[in-house]
Each structure stands twice: as structure tokens, then as C-alpha cells.
């Protein structure tokens, strides 16, 4: 009983901020505007623009998660080899702490201020006769937005992955070497298996981080709503096409389903990896 009392605040919190909203989304996805049960919202999900938005969001999240995970992990390893408590290390970790949270409108604005038609960089290179002003790559989901997302994914990876890399003891490497193991052997049989679960877990975090992002995309792209989070926003805020709120909830349910699939993949993959690396 006493133990239950201790976790009460946690359960209350998750009920209010996770359980109830999820329930509202699920129920809303299966009723029409008058509260009658329907499957119409779900069948609306097969509309080409919604399918395309799901694909865009998934590709964008997957690509930036992989890029962020690989570069973030390399950076984390590099940082971990630096002198502990040293200036460089403290500088980079605190910098990443700031950059990982530097998302949303402010980040989009930073890119606009740098690369857009009146951007700092655009105006600067103009002096050398290079015209960047007439390109619009910054506003394409698979170019500019991908770059912007990667920009906050790498530092986030560093922050969540650094503790795992720091857990690697130099003695293990020395032990591997004293037994005649090469660098490859060390990574394949020692460091790899230890880091794999955290690496995949961190990558999953990056995926969901990008998948649910909304403000950054909205600040950059205001036409065509290429991402699913933008399509959902559309159903709630459109002044032109009214009464599609429940289709929005069906889309949200679709997002929940995708994250569930990714989570399952994570569990399976992690189990496989542990087995493979451990054998």
C-alpha cells in the first residue's frame, strides 16, 4: 500500500497527460461530428495526400534519426576520449545541451535569418557574385527541413548517448588487447554489445522526437502541409474546410500506431542484437 502511494503522483500525471488525451483521440477517431460511431475517419486516411504526409513524416524522422544517431554517437565517442572535466568536454556537452533544446520557431528563424532571401549568408555571398536568393530549398521538407531537424538531432544524441560511451572502461580495452584482440574484436565483442541497446534506444527517441515535431515545420513550411503533424493541425485550424476534427484524430491514431510499430521493432531488434553480439 505504501509503495502504491509513492507512485500515485506518477500515475495521476500519466493519466491526465497521456491516458485521457489518448482516449479522446481513440474515441474521436471512431465517431462523426454528431457523435455517432463511424469508420469514415479511418477510411479518410487512405486519401493520397494523407498517405503522402505519413510517408514524408516517417522518411523525414527515420533519415534524421539515423543521421543524428551516427554523427551524434561519433561525436559522443570523441568527447568521451577528451580529458574528463576538461574545458573542451564541458564546452561541448553544455553546448549540446543548449542546441538539443534549440528547436521550434527559434531554430527555424535562425535558419531563415541565415539562408533565406534576406538571410545573412545569402546577402554576404552576394558580394562575391553568388546568388542564393532565388532558391527555395530551405522550404522543402526533404532538404531544408531535413537539415534543420538533423541540427537538433545530433546534439540530442550526444546528450543521451554520452553516459553510455562514458560507461566503457579503458581496462576492458586493455584486457582485450592483452588477450591479443584487435580494435575490431574489441568493438565487435565488447563495446558493441554494451552500447547497442542504448544506441538503438536513443535512435528510437530521435525518431519520435522528429515524428512529433510541429512548430519547426510550421515556421518553415506554410504551403501544402507535407507532414502528418501539419495535416492534423490543418484539420483543427482550417477556416476553409470545416468539420474534419475527427479525421485529425484518426491521423493522430495513425501516428500512435506507427510509433507502436517502431517500438515493437525496437524490442525485437534489441533482443536480436543482444543475441547476435553476445554469441
Amino acid at each position, binding site marked *: 500500500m505504501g509503495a502504491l502511494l509513492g507512485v500515485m503522483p506518477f500515475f495521476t500525471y500519466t493519466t491526465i497527460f497521456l491516458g485521457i488525451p489518448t482516449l479522446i483521440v481513440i474515441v474521436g477517431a471512431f465517431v462523426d461530428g454528431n457523435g455517432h460511431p463511424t469508420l469514415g475517419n479511418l477510411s479518410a486516411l487512405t486519401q493520397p*495526400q494523407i498517405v503522402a504526409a505519413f510517408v514524408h513524416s516517417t522518411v523525414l524522422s527515420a533519415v534524421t534519426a539515423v543521421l543524428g544517431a551516427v554523427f551524434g554517437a561519433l561525436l559522443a565517442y570523441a568527447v568521451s576520449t577528451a580529458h574528463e572535466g576538461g574545458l573542451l568536454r564541458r564546452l561541448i556537452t553544455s553546448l549540446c545541451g543548449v542546441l538539443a533544446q534549440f528547436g521550434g520557431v527559434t531554430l527555424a528563424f535562425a535558419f*531563415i535569418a541565415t539562408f533565406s532571401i*534576406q538571410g545573412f549568408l545569402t546577402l554576404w555571398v552576394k558580394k562575391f557574385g553568388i546568388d542564393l536568393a532565388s*532558391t527555395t530549398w530551405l522550404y522543402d521538407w526533404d532538404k531544408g527541413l531535413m537539415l534543420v531537424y538533423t541540427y537538433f538531432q545530433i546534439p540530442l544524441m550526444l546528450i543521451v548517448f554520452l553516459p553510455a560511451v562514458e560507461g566503457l572502461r579503458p581496462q576492458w580495452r586493455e584486457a582485450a588487447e592483452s588477450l591479443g584482440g584487435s580494435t575490431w574484436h574489441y568493438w565487435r565483442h565488447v563495446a558493441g554489445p554494451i552500447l547497442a541497446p542504448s544506441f538503438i534506444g536513443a535512435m528510437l527517441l530521435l525518431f519520435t522526437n522528429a515524428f512529433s515535431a510541429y512548430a519547426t515545420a510550421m515556421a518553415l513550411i*506554410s504551403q501544402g502541409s507535407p507532414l502528418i503533424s501539419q495535416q492534423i493541425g*490543418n484539420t483543427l485550424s482550417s477556416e*476553409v474546410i*470545416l*468539420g474534419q476534427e475527427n479525421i485529425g484524430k484518426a491521423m493522430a491514431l495513425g501516428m500512435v500506431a506507427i510509433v507502436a510499430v517502431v517500438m515493437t521493432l525496437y524490442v525485437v531488434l534489441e533482443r536480436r542484437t543482444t543475441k547476435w553480439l553476445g554469441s
Partner: protein
Amino acid sequence: MKTRMTRRGGVAALAVVTLISIGACSPPTKSTGSTGTAGVKASSATSATDLGGMAALVDAAKKEGTLNVIALPPDWANYGEIIKGFQAKYGLKVNSAQPDASSADEITAAKNLKGQSKAPDVFDLGGAVASANTTMFAPYKVATFNDIPALLKDAKGLGVSDYGGYMSIGYDAGKVPAPKTVTDLLKPAYKGKVALNGDPTKAGAGFSGVVMTALSQGGTPNDISKGVDFFKALKTAGNFLPIDPTGATIESGQTPVVFDWDYLNVAQGKKLKGTMNWKTFIPAGAVVGGYYVQAINKDAPHPAAARLWQEYLYSDEGQNLWLKGGARPVREKAMVAAGTIDKAAHAALPKAVGTPVFLTKAQTDKANAYLTANWAKAIG
């Protein structure tokens, strides 16, 4: 100004649709009361005559003493001056709540504050929001009701267009050559420079921009596919800028060409006078109109004041004040004929060549369905 530019500018397109779709509502039954000399309660009066004439309406409104308005920014279509004029003329106090609220917010406020003295008495709504909420309105015909074109009003006075404008192209004349037609925008001089105010599946201004483009490319109100095709070509040419234009993006030079309502582009030009030569142009033969809708809250806490406000807005005085703010008042034509229009302000409006087109409800639905399926694909 800019939040409102999208917020309010976005909703105007479907005003006309509202009026057509709300026509089916029946007027409320009149009940006898003590307010008016003619034996009709102000809350059910459908004209000033019901209350015994204008003088009786003014008396009843003065007794109430206050008018609650909502979502009327002082620098939007000259509302600041209109409110001041009304207060000075009739001695009523005007409570202006949430000037930057959206059309949908107005309806929410009326629902949440129902029965309270702070509830809004009158609405100024975008068409789509108005047509979805007609059951909230009280029917009322102003004295000048007959001057309003039939297409722009509900026959019973359940929501009447008040002011609006035409879709236009605003541009920085110091940076780009003056476009003579919409097609000109495909030229290399406009590379990465053309923006549309809002996603057309989301904002009324963006929607009307696509309709205007369709008309300019030989399309019809029944078939806007040519408008979408044009934006696709614009995107392929690298000229389309998917930024949401605001007063700030115009001022900073990020969006040198903007599709938006003429009154917003004109207001932008006035604001930037001296720093930027922002010009407004309405393509010939592609004039697309959009109006806001005025309506009385049926649960208005000050029913007589609400009706007096309508009379003021649709009087020559009120209409000319809107005109002064760059918007086209709904009685424009009748006032030109009668010679009561503010000639200087009228001459300052951008020239429109061709008959203004207003989409019907059916045409709007068709266009929406087409945009929903094709817009993202065209510019993605």
C-alpha cells in the same frame, strides 16, 4: 497587423457562401414586449420599424447604454474610427473585447458567455465560420437593406455581408518588375519571390488566390484546376515561395510578391510608404471578391444596441468609414449611384477590370475537394 492578416484575411473568401446557405433558416416568432413603442421586444425586432422607428431604436439602445463587440482590431478596415464615431454619435459605451481574436473565437466567446452581460452583441465573421453557426444569429434588416446586392445578403437578414475586397497581387516595385498579368510571374525575374497568403486548404485568402489564378488562366469558378496547375508551374520554375507572408516578411523583403486581399495589400503599401514602394494590382478579368459577414448574436445582452450598431455600419457614414480603411463597403454600388460615397477614398481603391466573381456554395465545395486532393501534390 500580421497575425490578423492571416487570421482575418484568411476567412473572407466564403462570405457569400454563407448567405446562400443560411437562407433556409426561419425567422423567430415575434413576441410582444415592453421595450419598443410598437410593442415588440428589441431582442426580436427584425427592423427598426418593429420598434417604432429609428428614434425609438436609439432610445432603447441608450437605455441599454453599452455595446459589446469582439474581434475588431482598431487598425483593421478602420474599425478604430468606426467605434469612436458610433460612441460619439449615440453616446453608447463600446466594450471592444479580444480585438485580435479569430472568427471561430467570436462564436466560442458567445457560447461561453451566454446569459452574461459581457457576451458579444454582434459578430464580424468570415464566411465559412458564419455559415456553420447560423443558429446563433438573430435576423435583422437595416434601413438600407435594399441597397445590398441580393447575392451578398441573406433574404431574411440572418447575416449580411458588410465589407470586403478583391484578390490582388502586391509587389515591391523597387525589387521586381511590375507584373501585367498573372502569367508574368513565371518569368525568371520572380525566381523565389512569389508567396500566397496561407495554404488554400486552410486559409480563405490563399483559397481565393488560387481561384483568381484559375480565372486568369482560362479556368472557371466550376473548375479551378488551372489555378493549381499554375502554382505547380510556378513551383517548378522555382518562383513559388512557400512562406506565409506577413507584414514583417514584406517589410524585410523576404516576400517581394504576395497574393492577398487588396485592402490588406493597400494597407501594407500605406504602412511602408517612404521605405518601400509596395504596389497593389488586380489582374484584369480575374476579379475574385470576398466579404465579411455581419450578424447579431441572438442572445445579445444589449439587443437594441446591437441593432443600432448594424444601422450605423450600413449607413452612409459607416460604409464610408470602411472605405476609408481601404475595404469595399457592401453598398458601394448604390452609394456611387446616389453620389453619397466618399469620392476621394473610392478613387484610391485599386482598379478592378472585369466583373467580380463570387463562388457559390456548390462551387466552393467543389474547389475545396479539388484542392484537398491536389494542392499538396502540386507544390510538394
